[in-house]
């Protein structure tokens, strides 16, 4: 007899079984992520306790806060009446009462529309830079806003910004003219020269002349009235937009083969990066006037802007240099073999890649710059932190700490966190790797 001891072989596949109930769904997630082993479980419990104790203190304090009161003592009375004696709650009334000062400083309140309009204009101006979807025609706003925004903020005759903008038009025409008559290179020299001559010597006559014929002007506002977040944003935006091009030039200078230019750039970058910003602000405050011709007295905010810009551009230069160094040499050689000259190669091949690599660094420099604008409170400009001190010095609000600092910190956090999220979005969008 054959085949009697043949063992049974299953002919069909077994049904798939459901995974153990403990390893899937919410339970599985909790087991896997919160209690995978003893140590981790202990950490989870500690963390949960920490979160609980933080929130149980914080949430009633924040949401039980008082929004309408004239002073800290009044505030405390209201809290005591509402939550019982000894209860702790926030006194948001200080924010409610001083909100406009924290935002605009001493800027005249009937003119608040001007900084507001400037902010809207700013968003319109940066939209085409930040988002690809924005209409390309908005770049005209980007080009015009450096002239309109200062005019809106400081006021004065409209002819000053128009004449300043005219400088670029004149420079362009001089370049065209010279380039036609003689060579392109001479045009490149003559154009900027004409621009500088126009700005330094002619534009003030032109604008005052035109202003006397057609007096079209906004009520002027002095710089010392600027304050609060308006000042922080003004300093931050100027610093960011100016430091970026200067940083690129410095980075290229540092990478250059021209020994003298390289030495100058290295010296500048290392000097600026070696000293704290506050010393540069001291320089702006007390020392800069010695370096200028006697009698020159220009605005403290302008001086601070220059210093913050110089400071940030040195850091920016280092970040961009990192991007340049990370590019493989093949890219430079490829550009050379295509017969591109230096500037073409930079514009078409090198910079787009180098800047993409350095996006995280660039954005964190921007964030750092925006945070560093608070340092101007030390040279007694009234930025948000300066305002917090003013308010605390007031009899009504003497002794208030958490609410004011908390509010300022929260606003800064929104801006900086937003910037860092945007940089992540940009990185993802520009990612061309695998």
């Amino acid at each position, binding site marked *: 007899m054959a085949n009697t001891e043949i063992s049974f072989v299953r002919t069909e596949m077994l049904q798939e079984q459901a995974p153990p109930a403990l390893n899937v769904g919410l339970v599985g997630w909790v087991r896997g992520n919160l209690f995978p082993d003893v140590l981790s479980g202990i950490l989870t419990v500690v963390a949960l306790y920490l*979160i609980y104790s933080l929130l149980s203190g914080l949430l009633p304090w924040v949401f039980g806060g008082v929004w309408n009161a004239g002073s800290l003592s009044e505030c405390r009375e209201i809290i005591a009446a509402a939550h019982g004696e000894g209860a702790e709650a926030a006194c948001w009334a200080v924010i409610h009462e001083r909100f406009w000062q924290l935002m605009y400083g001493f800027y005249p309140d009937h003119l608040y529309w001007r900084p507001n309009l400037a902010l809207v204009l700013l968003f319109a101006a940066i939209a085409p830079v930040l988002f690809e979807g924005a209409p390309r025609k908005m770049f005209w706003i980007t080009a015009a806003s450096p002239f309109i925004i200062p005019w809106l903020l400081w006021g004065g005759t409209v002819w000053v910004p128009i004449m300043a903008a005219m400088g670029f038009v004149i420079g362009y025409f001089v370049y065209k003219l010279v380039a036609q008559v003689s060579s392109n290179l001479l045009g490149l020299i003559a154009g900027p020269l004409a621009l500088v001559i126009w700005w330094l010597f002619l534009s003030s006559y032109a604008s005052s002349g035109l202003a006397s014929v057609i007096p079209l002007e906004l009520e002027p506002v002095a710089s010392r009235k600027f304050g609060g977040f308006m000042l922080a944003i003004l300093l931050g935006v100027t610093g960011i937009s100016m430091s970026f091009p200067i940083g690129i030039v410095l980075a290229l200078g540092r990478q250059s083969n*021209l020994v003298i230019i390289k030495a100058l750039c290295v010296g500048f970058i290392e000097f600026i990066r070696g000293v704290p910003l506050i010393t540069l602000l001291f320089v702006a405050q007390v020392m800069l006037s010695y370096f200028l011709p006697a009698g020159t007295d220009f605005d403290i905010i302008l001086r601070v802007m220059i210093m913050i810009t110089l400071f940030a551009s040195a850091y920016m230069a280092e970040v961009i240099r990192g991007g340049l160094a990370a590019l493989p040499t093949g890219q430079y050689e490829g550009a050379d073999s295509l017969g591109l000259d230096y500037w073409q190669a930079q514009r078409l091949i090198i910079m787009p890649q180098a800047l993409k690599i350095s996006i995280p660094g660039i954005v964190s420099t921007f964030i750092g710059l925006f945070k560093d604008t608070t340092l101007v409170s030390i040279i007694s400009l009234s930025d948000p932190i300066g305002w917090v001190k003013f308010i605390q010095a007031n009899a009504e609000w003497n002794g208030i700490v958490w609410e004011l600092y908390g509010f300022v910190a929260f606003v800064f956090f929104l801006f900086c966190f937003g910037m860092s999220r945007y940089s992540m979005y940009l990185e993802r969008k520009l990612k061309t790797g695998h």
Partner: protein
Amino acid sequence: MTTLTDPPQESFRLSMLLYDSRYRSMTIQVIVMILFMLGAAWLINNVIINFADAGKTFSFGFLGQSADYDISQRLIEYSSVSTHGRAAVVGVLNTLLVAVMGCIAATVIGVFVGILRLSNNWIVSRLAAVYVESLRNVPVLLWIVLTMAIVAEALPTPIMFRGGEATMSLFDTVVVSNRGIFIPRLVPSSYGLLLIPVIIASLFGLRLLGKRANRIQEKTGNRPSTLLASIGIVVVPAVVVFFGLSAISSNNQQVFVTSGVGEIGSVSDLAESEKRISYCHASGSAASLNGLRHLEELGITFKRKNYFNISAAETALATGKCGLMATSQSGSEQVVQRVSSQVKDGVIVSSFAGEFTEGRAMEIEFPVVTQKGIAKFEGGTHLRNSLIALWLALSLYTAAFIAEIVRAGILAVSHGQTEAANALGLRSGKTLRLVVLPQAMRVIFPPLISQYLNLTKNSSLAIAVGYMDVTGTLGGITLNQTGREMETLLLLMAVYLVISLTVSTAMNAYNERTKLKER
């Protein structure tokens, strides 16, 4: 027949300066140089004219003049009659102090948070992320002033100490109050400083032990256990030397010195003749601490008066502000002489050897709360509010950046390395220590150093909380008092430049040494 013709010898034409790329770079550089020189000359000329107009001169002579202001936080001897130069040095030391303390704390917190952020535990890693994002997206100046406000507002006041609402913390060894934190401090006796070289030698011994273990491991494949030996190497010499030195110190008996109308033979006699002895305690003197302990053991009620150093205590004894002080026997003759030279006629200075408690090589000075009228805190090391606020805020803020650096460094080590280490049978601790960290360190180190430099530069914000660092002394009060903006600011920037350049040079050298060796 072929003729070789050289290309026509091109003579130099002026237009080649512009159109020939060989010469153009020279032209550009020369023009830039000329422009730079002109700019610099213009600036310097302006300075000279402005200085002449204001009747000022450029000189650093003010550094030798008396500063006329006090600095409460100081690491070296300084008083208001000291010079501006010395004030600047005090400031530099304070800057370095807070920078070093901050770097250490920031590294510890940062590494901890960075590793937590990589944890598999969802809630812990999120918590670490919240810490990092909230700290680094808010200006450091705000953290500093906020910490200062909290320290000044939230900690117990001296009045609360008097009323018993607040007490000393950590088994009565630390005073936490809104006047600052007082911690115990180590006071070496005359031989106590010898402990330091012993401990350094032990550390060297540890290294040798590790090297020996490595050698044996490479030869035989087995690593000898070094745990017991290393504990022995660190602990045994220190303990032996400590007790040895203590024995010498106790041979070198301490002596009490007192001043009064009559000759007195012992402490007990003094206690009988006077209702209440007031004891001059010199901070930082081991003999004083030993004397203190001895008085307590005798059960004599006495009043402790604290003085900044021994000579201040001697002067107080001579002028009768306090009645008794302790000194080491070897120096007692001189002390008696010095005090005698300061006393009024008719006052006799006498010294008597007490039956002293055994001296120790290292004494510990604990802070105390004295309660007469308003509570006062004496003894120990006083960490002022400004230092604590600056230190805490800077280290917490910088730690957020360091955490990200550590995380990036660890993530930069390819996962294959960990897997290979696992395949070789290394446990997770050893994998981290022998495989991951050495490779991660190469990525972590350069940005870490730059964070240290940032912390040092940010410490200049001390001026916002009144901590007297170099910006507060040289760039603050000295600038305002002397009106020499140019000199003080240049000097201030030079100080920071020297610190930054020194650190970055050292770090470049280190990078060069640890660079991956490639073809």
